[in-house]
Every structure is written in structure tokens, then in C-alpha cells.
């Protein structure tokens, strides 16, 4: 039995998010709004060994499957992640996250003078570019620390 299995046990139903960049697991939980208060079991593995990443984080969230918007968010801060949907102890879906061309309504613009931070009836939109993400309104590029700008409840 591997080290990894000893630390993080199998779940009956839910989502396993694997291959998260080491150190990002708590950010992912924060983004997904998972704090254990709803009673779902949450297992966290941090800095476990990985053939692909060297070190990685892994999350197992019981009785919860991710929505597409949550996957989009995940793709921005954990682009190497894989998402396994588990039902009755079996992995029924195994997906790599894909970076979308654009994310809407998920991030707030760090430029305080951007029109999306005024009281206007508009949703934020960011184009995903090689350098990070870019506000579709003011052009501001978020190069790093994308998780700090998440507007997801």
C-alpha cells in the first residue's frame, strides 16, 4: 500500500481532485467554498509524491460533484489537475481540466478603476492568455495570484 493511500482513504461518492500543484489545495478548497461546514467529508493530501509533478496536493470531497464553472476556476489555479468523479467507490469519470478561452463572472478585476468594479449591470469577463488572464473590459492582466481575485461564492 502506498504512502498516498495510507494518508487519503477511498471515498464512496464524490470528487477526487488530483495533481493539484503542491501548496494549492487550501486555495482550491477556498475557491470551491468547501470548509466542512456542510458536513461533507473532506480529505486533504499535501506535498505527496507524484511521478508527474514531483510533489502534488490531492483533495477528496465526499458527496459533491463539481460544476463546470467550478472546473473553469480550477483550471486557472491548478491547470494540471485531474478530476475524478467517484460513485459507489468506482471512478466513473476521469477528466483533465482544460483552460477555457474565457471565464465570465468568476474573477473580479484588480484594477479598482475598471468599469466592472463600478455599480454597473455587467459580469466580469477575462480572456485566458499565455501570460495569465486579461480583463475583457480594461485589459488588466492578472499574471500571478489569480486565486486572490476569485469572485466565486
Amino acid at each position, binding site marked *: 500500500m502506498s504512502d498516498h493511500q495510507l494518508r487519503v482513504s477511498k471515498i464512496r461518492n464524490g470528487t477526487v481532485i488530483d495533481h493539484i500543484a503542491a501548496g494549492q489545495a487550501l486555495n482550491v478548497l477556498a475557491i470551491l467554498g468547501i470548509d466542512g461546514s456542510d458536513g461533507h467529508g473532506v480529505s486533504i493530501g499535501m506535498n505527496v509524491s507524484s511521478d508527474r509533478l514531483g510533489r502534488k496536493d490531492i483533495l477528496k470531497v465526499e458527496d459533491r460533484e463539481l460544476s463546470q464553472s467550478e472546473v473553469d476556476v480550477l483550471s486557472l489555479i491548478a491547470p494540471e489537475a485531474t478530476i475524478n468523479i467517484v460513485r459507489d467507490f468506482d471512478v466513473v469519470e476521469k477528466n483533465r481540466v482544460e483552460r477555457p478561452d474565457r471565464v465570465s463572472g468568476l474573477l473580479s478585476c484588480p484594477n479598482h478603476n475598471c468599469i466592472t468594479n463600478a455599480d454597473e449591470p*455587467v459580469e466580469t469577463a477575462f480572456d485566458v492568455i499565455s501570460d495569465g488572464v486579461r480583463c475583457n473590459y480594461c485589459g488588466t492582466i492578472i499574471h500571478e495570484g489569480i486565486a486572490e481575485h476569485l469572485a466565486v461564492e
Partner: protein
Amino acid sequence: MRHDHLISAAQLSRSDVEAVLDRAGDVADDLGASRDSCPGLVLGLCFFEPSTRTKMSFDAAAKRLGGSTIDMGSVESSSVTKGESLADTVRVIEGYADAIVLRHPSEGAAKLASEFVDVPVINAGDGAGQHPSQTLLDLYTIREEHGLDDLTVGIMGDLKYGRTVHSLASALANFEVSQHFISPESLRLPRSVRFDLHEAGAQVREHTDLEPVLSELDVLYVTRIQRERFPDETEYRAVAGEYQIDAETLAAGPDDLTVMHPLPRVDEIAPDVDETDHASYFQQAHNGVPVRMALLEMLLENHG
């Protein structure tokens, strides 16, 4: 030019720019003639920030095309003071006007406005973002003086917050232009503009002093270093004097160097430059009318 709105210089291809400048050239050849190409045009002037040149030149352009303008007046006298959103304001004005010229203190304002109306929106300056119609008249001026290829252009001053700079740099990337950016370290180009220039494969160099590059320039585009942007006065004073030019400064430059400025200037260009052959900033401002006439004609043609 195949656009419904003019929001950013980044949307302008080389052929878009050339089409507008060619049309502007035709207009300028006989500016006094009755063009009357847009009879009945009502142009909505929505200026949420002060403006002299941009607003008056759009006003003049609309009238010289046979149209007229309506003006929402100052922000203080408008419904904005009652808390009306920009989205609502432009949706109302859409019912009064055939096109909207918008200046607003927030970046992205014109983009937002264009999503709420069907009439053409022209970005006349959105905060520190873009000012694409200014860029068209800047390019017109440069083309009249030097053409638009095989050029070396220096852009000096507040490159971080200068919307005319952001638009001009983006548009120049369509041409064979070597761009030199001269500014204090604290006011260098924002990441987004540098990213676009890199993506476009533009020839770009950044400097903190004018002197090493002056002799290479065909055009020196000067902008005001905005004192209000600095966290403290001492920091401003440390750099401001370094970015002022006078006739003596320019003596070290090429004889045919063209000095431009979007105006208003404060003290970054000394009055003695006005008397030299380098000074092009007043002609540059005058070029705003034919360029904006051409732009209005073309956007309205696209709109059908």
C-alpha cells in the same frame, strides 16, 4: 474599416488605419467645402470628464458633415449625480442620437457602453485605458510628416497612465516602426501594453533618459507627467525636470524631428519649441476634425 464601434486602437488593423487616414486626407483637402455626407446626423456627446479638443473637434466634425450634436453637459448637471448607471445613461441617449462619443473616468467604460446600445460608440478616452480617435489623428499627423513605415518614434512621459500612449503604441505596431519608450521607472508602460507589443512582434525599447536615443528619432511624442499620480511630491520632483524639453534639447536631435503632444501641455514642452520647425502639436490638434469626420462617416456607413 469593418467595425461597428471604435473602442480600442487594438481593434484597428493596418488597412483600417490606412482607410481612415486616406478618407481624412480627402476631407482635409477641402475642409471648408460643404460635405453634407451625414445630413440629419445627431451625435451624442457624453463626456463624464472635462475635454476641450476632443469634444469640440467631434462637435465640429459632426456639423461639417451636415449633422448636429447633443451634449449631456457636465456630470454635475446630469442624472449621473442621481446615481444613474452608465448602462442606463447610454441606453437613454441611444434613443436620441445616431452615434455616441463617450469619455469616462473608468477603464472599459466604452466597451461596456457598446454592449448596451446598437448605435456606434466611439471611445473618446476611458480613464487610463485607451483613446483611439486621438491615435488616428496622431497617425495622420505622423504620416503627413514622415509616412508610417521605416520610422523611429520616441514616446516620453507618463506611459503608465497615458491613454493616448497606450493607443498609439498599439496602433504603431501595425507598421514598420521602432518604438522607444522614455519614462521614469515608476511610470513605464503597463504589463498589458507591453504584452500586446510583444505579441505583435513590435520593435520596442525602454529608457529612462531621452538623451541616448534622441538622435535616432523621427518623431518625439511627449505627454505630461501627471503630478497627481505620484505618492509624494518629492518623488515627482525627482523625475519631472528630466522629462522637459526645450529648443536647446532638440538641437541635439535630427533637423526633421517632429515633436508631438496630445495637449494640454503644462511645462513639459517649453514655449521656445513652438517657434521651431519641430513643433507639430497644434497642427496635430487641428487634424482632429478631418480625421473624426472620416471616422464618423465610416462608422455610420458600417452601421447602415
